[in-house]
């Protein structure tokens, strides 16, 4: 179910035609019909989640696996709530590997995937609410 708060007429249209990596269904369910809330949550996402993702990459680069696990754990809830399907399992794998310190060599690539997907989400979301 597509949810566009404002259908934009400019070039951002081609962004909308690309398949969304996320879904605002849950946010809507929570909102109780409050459009302001949906907008607020989207903005909050755009504001805070990239920061967390940055932290993920940094701690991965510095091999701070404990921090990696923690950040991955934190991102999990939001990824689930926003139904960002492509990285649902990925973030879990990162958390588990980092925590148990297994298959650590896979982790950086997974973190990169997260970064990429989230960045794309931000773009798509920004378009959606403009």
């Amino acid at each position, binding site marked *: 179910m597509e949810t566009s708060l404002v259908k934009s007429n400019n070039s951002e249209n081609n962004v909308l035609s690309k398949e969304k990596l996320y879904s605002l269904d*849950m*946010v809507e*369910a*929570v*909102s*109780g019909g*409050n459009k302001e*809330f949906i907008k*607020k*949550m989207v903005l*909050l*996402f755009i504001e*805070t*989640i990239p920061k967390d993702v940055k932290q993920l990459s940094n701690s991965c680069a510095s091999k701070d696996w404990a921090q990696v696990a*923690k950040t991955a*754990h*934190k991102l*999990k*809830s*939001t990824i*689930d*709530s926003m139904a960002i399907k492509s990285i649902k399992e990925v973030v879990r794998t990162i958390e588990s590997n980092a925590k148990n310190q297994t298959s650590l060599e896979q982790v950086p690539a997974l973190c990169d995937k997260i970064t990429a997907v989230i960045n794309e989400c931000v773009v798509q979301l920004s378009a959606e609410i403009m």
Partner: protein
Amino acid sequence: MKDQTFKVYIIEDDTWYGSMLQHYLSLNPEYEVKRFESPGEFFAELHNKPDVVTLDYSLPDCDGAEVLRKIKETNPDIRVIIISGQEDVATAINLLKNGAFDYIVKDDDTKDRLWNSILHLREISDLKQEVETLKTQVGRKYDFSEMIIGKSEAIKKVFALIEKAVSTNITVSITGETGSGKEMVAKAIHYNSPRSKLPFVTVNVAAIPRDLIESELFGHEKGAFTGAVTRRIGKFEEADKGTLFLDEIGELDINLQAKLLRVLQEKEITRVGGNGTVKIDVRIIVATHKNLMEEVKNKNFREDLYYRLIGMPVNLPPLRERDNDICILAKHFIDNFCKDNKLPKKTLSPEAQQKLLQYSFPGNVRELKSVMELAVVMADDDSISPEHITFNTTSSISDLLSKEITLKAFEVQVIQHYLDKYNKDVLLVAKKLDIGKSTIYRMVQMGELNIK
């Protein structure tokens, strides 16, 4: 009832997720939802007594179990719901054991689970409140069945009055025929009132010689009069903080009535021959079979004392107006007598019950008891039949005339009396009363007379 807003505090370090939860729960207008990103922030506001706390178990640099423990320590009534990404059953069980109300895993259904958990919690809270209210209500439904037995409409009215009397110290004046249970009513009031653990003192004013009544009630000092060898505490002092039941108050000497009135008004007594006053706090219940208003009119009773004593008037119905209570009480007396005298149980035959129901019981419950005890002794087998029941009424013509009933009713009573006297010999009775036997038979057919 506490104020209607239900306080929900969320401890969640993930701003985005926390905001989501907060908004969702806020959709319920009865909830006041606050969000904290660290336990520190939360504990600063713990004094506001939230009803529910949702706690993210995997908070950074923090032990969720420790937070739970601290919350429970501060206020065990606060319900804690743990939300966590952990799926460790052992951890969950441990937390639940340590006082967590619920444990919810973070997934797509979390917000709904949380919502339901809080609803469930509130239901429990409401149920607990309801139980408390019901408990108080049940406590208030007094059980008078130990003192007064009966289910008739007439006696139920008395129960209702007693219930009203138990919660305050209002003076109660009980009227009723002799043997109708006035002292029982007084006891029922006392033992269901806040004074139940304190003395219940009875004074039968009619039973005490006139010259001794004053010292009986108010006590006397040593040497106050001939025979007063020691100081004596009167009944009023004996009943201090409790209840004083003055039976046959109508018999109180007019001179003492003045003293009684002053005692009731000042709430203090002076012993006979004494100088000082003693403060007393007594709940007064009085009883009389007389019509006090009549006594006032006849100048036998002081009007001011009358008004002081009337309080809540309770009129005890005579046994004959209590319908089936006669049978209930009869069975009660039979059972008690059999038990006390170690006899096998006896029952009351339907015919015997009928006989009881038709009798007027001028002596009321007291008379019924005596009749039933005799009946138990007279009955050889285990069933009491009508011939075992004998009524010893001294029913004279003035008794009959004291009632105001129709001529027809008088007729019926007279004929029935003769029938009872002459063993239901219709021919003989008809001859004695000089009426046709068919008249009697007709009345029997109409159910007005009984020849069984």
